[in-house]
């Protein structure tokens, strides 16, 4: 499991962000398109691509994209 790939997978879920504009340190709640639906999308993407079940609280307790990746890694 690689951080760079996860950041790419994360970014791919958004429609309106510039390619390569999301980094590990991006505070995802600051992305205009972020919403409670996007939280569900990220959870479903992690399940589909990484076979890992994140929870809503995992997302809530994260600030950056890297924080989510760290939670993914330990599951």
């Amino acid at each position, binding site marked *: 499991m690689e951080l760079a790939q996860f950041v790419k997978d994360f970014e791919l879920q958004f429609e309106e962000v510039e390619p390569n504009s999301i980094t590990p340190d991006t505070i995802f709640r600051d992305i205009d398109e972020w919403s*409670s*639906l996007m*939280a*569900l*999308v990220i*959870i*479903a*993407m992690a*399940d*589909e691509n990484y076979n890992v*079940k*994140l*929870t*809503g*609280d995992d*997302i*809530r307790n994260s600030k950056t994209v890297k924080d989510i990746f760290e939670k993914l890694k330990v599951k």
Partner: protein
Amino acid sequence: MSNPFTLQNKTILITGASSGIGRATAILCAEMGATLFITGRKESKLNETFTNLSGSGHQKLVLDFENEDAITRLVAAIDQLDGIVHSAGIVDNVPFQFIKQKALDKIFNLNLNVPLMITRDLIKKRKLHSKSSIVFLSSLVGVGKTYYGATSYSASKGAISSVIKVMALEMATKKIRVNSVCPGMVLTEMVDNLEAISSNQLKKDEKENYPLGYGTPEQVANAIVFLLSDASSWITGTNLVIDGGASIH
């Protein structure tokens, strides 16, 4: 004067009685005088409900409805009924573009096919008395109010809310009534299992969308008992919304 709200002299089947709404309904039905046949998947949880039933003569059967012979075993074990409450069910919370065929099949099987097949077999085997009442657990999502990630769940509940009308129509000649209750959010194990939703989101949802706050299993059970009793003898084909005012907006 006879009390139309009583369940005395009625035998009622309740699925999903090991937890949440099914358990609260079983406990209340027994208090109202019914004799029960309860089912659940987990034996210890079903026993816990069973020991809390007042009155006597109740029966229980542990069944996993994902097993092929479960319905046959259930129908064979039942003698005669005056009511059914289909409370066994599951939920899923995945955005539309991520839904999987397998998960969709599972939720349709447990939430729709199983309760329909149980009812069909009981009717075919003439195990439902005339004037019986059948209550399905639909949901607010079954009648058009919905939320993110509810594709497969609302599809299964929408099917329930629609099929009860056909059943009510066809079963009227036998004087059997068919209704559903459509609860809003009730904090049960089912909601605990919705892990994709954070506890904070639930608090916010309750505050913003529920004038009377979230409901309890007992509040839903009260409405189910009404639909099982003769007090609702002129009500059939109805989706009864119970949601603390959530659908007012």
